[in-house]
């Protein structure tokens, strides 16, 4: 039975107004500009783009500002916005080998073509808070090295030349699944899983990836290669008859290399887990690659024993917008449901007391 309840309109209006007030905070402090967010909180912007599954730095910055820095709320805003735009088409697959690299490292080979390029990394900082940043100190520009550099070859191409690493499955003739357009039906193809992982929650995937290292999917990976940089995006334009570059996006790519003991069909070799995400999001790309490899257990004939190997578990729970919706719906009025449960518990309690009362009498007799 449902009881229609009205009211709260004025309270909601006033809550909105209070939210806007609190969002702005102390009016004596200058308001944040979107440029400031996009430039100085760039990795937060990257995370919102990645999990919002929409590449647009300015929109992501706006979402962060509107959400008061609550990144999951900002991701939700971006997801909602994307539903208002028409889909013009699908890009040609980007060529990460031709990336304008800003960082490229490998934990497998010390000397590899193109070298170890550290780029703008936190890795060698001492994680000491820098109180100078409490002000606005002058900051030196990055140094430039002008001698000729060779292109950064993909690690997979190096190992692949020896035949010691699995090759990528050849390009499929069919179109890859798109979870933005069609509801997911398990089991999902690896291509579809990678889309879900790419927009999955960083914290959830990080924890699952971590669990694979701690023994929950018997994974012993090497970071074969991580690269960050910009790639050209090309879109086929039917009225022109050819694909046109429409601009660049920044991506982070991770190739994890795992030892594989082989199977009846395949000799021992290295297998790979792959992650490709928007922006500079190294931790996320690594976590995606770990989860991608774990989710290939069935395909590679490994025993499925741990949650990270279970695609329904991983993919159904990695989306923080979905998760937020279901967890936070518990805040909605459940007055009638609760009244029903209250009645039930009272009845059970009465039965319990009647029962224990009679047991006590029996014991006394």
């Amino acid at each position, binding site marked *: 039975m449902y009881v229609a309840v009205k009211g709260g309109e004025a309270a909601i209006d006033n809550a909105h107004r209070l939210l806007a007030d609190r969002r702005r905070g102390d009016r004596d402090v200058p308001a944040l500009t979107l440029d400031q967010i996009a430039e100085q909180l760039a990795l937060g912007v990257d995370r919102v783009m990645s999990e919002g599954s*929409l*590449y*647009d730095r*300015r929109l992501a910055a706006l979402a962060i500002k509107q959400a008061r820095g609550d990144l999951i709320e900002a991701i939700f805003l971006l997801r909602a916005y994307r539903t208002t*735009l*028409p*889909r*013009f088409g*699908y*890009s*040609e*697959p*980007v060529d*990460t080998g031709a990336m304008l690299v*800003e*960082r490229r490292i490998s934990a497998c080979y*010390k*000397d590899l073509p193109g070298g*170890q*390029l*550290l*780029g*703008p990394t936190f890795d060698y900082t001492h994680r000491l808070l820098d109180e100078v940043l409490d002000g606005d100190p002058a900051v030196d520009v*990055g*140094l*430039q*090295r*002008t001698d000729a*550099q060779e292109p950064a070859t*993909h690690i*997979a191409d190096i190992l692949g030349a020896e035949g010691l690493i699995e090759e*990528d*499955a*050849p390009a*499929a003739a069919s179109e*890859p699944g798109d979870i*933005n357009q069609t509801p997911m039906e398990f089991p999902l193809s*690896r*291509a*579809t899983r*990678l*889309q879900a992982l*790419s927009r999955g929650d960083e914290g959830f995937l990080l924890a699952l990836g971590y669990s694979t290292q701690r023994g929950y999917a018997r994974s012993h990976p090497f970071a074969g290669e991580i690269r960050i940089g910009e790639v*050209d*995006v090309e*879109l086929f334009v039917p*009225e*022109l008859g*050819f694909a*046109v*570059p*429409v*601009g*660049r996006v920044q*991506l982070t*790519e991770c*190739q994890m290399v795992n030892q594989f003991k082989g199977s009846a069909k395949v000799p021992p070799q290295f297998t790979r887990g*792959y992650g*490709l*995400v928007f922006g500079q999001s190294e931790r996320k790309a690594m976590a995606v690659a770990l989860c991608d490899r774990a989710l290939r257990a069935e395909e590679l004939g490994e025993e499925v024993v741990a949650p990270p190997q279970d695609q329904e578990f991983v993919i159904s729970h990695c989306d923080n917008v979905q998760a937020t919706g279901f967890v936070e719906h518990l805040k909605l009025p459940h007055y009638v449901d609760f009244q029903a449960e209250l009645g039930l518990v009272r009845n059970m309690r009465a039965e319990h007391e009647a029962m224990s009362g009679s047991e006590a009498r029996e014991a006394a007799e």
Partner: protein
Amino acid sequence: MSFETIPQTLPMARRDRMAVLARSNAGSLQDLWALLGLKPGCTPLRGPESGLVMLRGRVGSSGEAFNVGEATVTRASVKLDNGTVGHAIALGRDREKARLCALIDALCQDVDTAARIDAELIVPIKCELDDADEKRRRQTAATRVDFFTMVRGEDR
């Protein structure tokens, strides 16, 4: 400026020109366009309108295609008064830039106009973009690790 990157043969192929226009900074583009002093009449055929393009990658970097996520994109198609059609499409949501790029694309279907636009607008923008790329490449190169091995005593 990195003059070695200036294309030797003008006019540029249509695709290359559209690629430069798509990546152009809207401010620089407007300034250079104003200097050209061209005022062609045109009508819109479609847009400018903003929408989404689904970006695709490849599984493992060279395998089958998969959808990474969407990006905002804006496109425009215009027709000059003489009937020539121009198209433009670029990442982002700048409609005025898309309209202007489509107009420039249409004008460049005429060889003489194309030569002038290439020399006075496209090449300067391309140099600006290439310089920015080169700077980024050099800054990244400065963070390259140069390994050197210590000579150990017992090997002497």
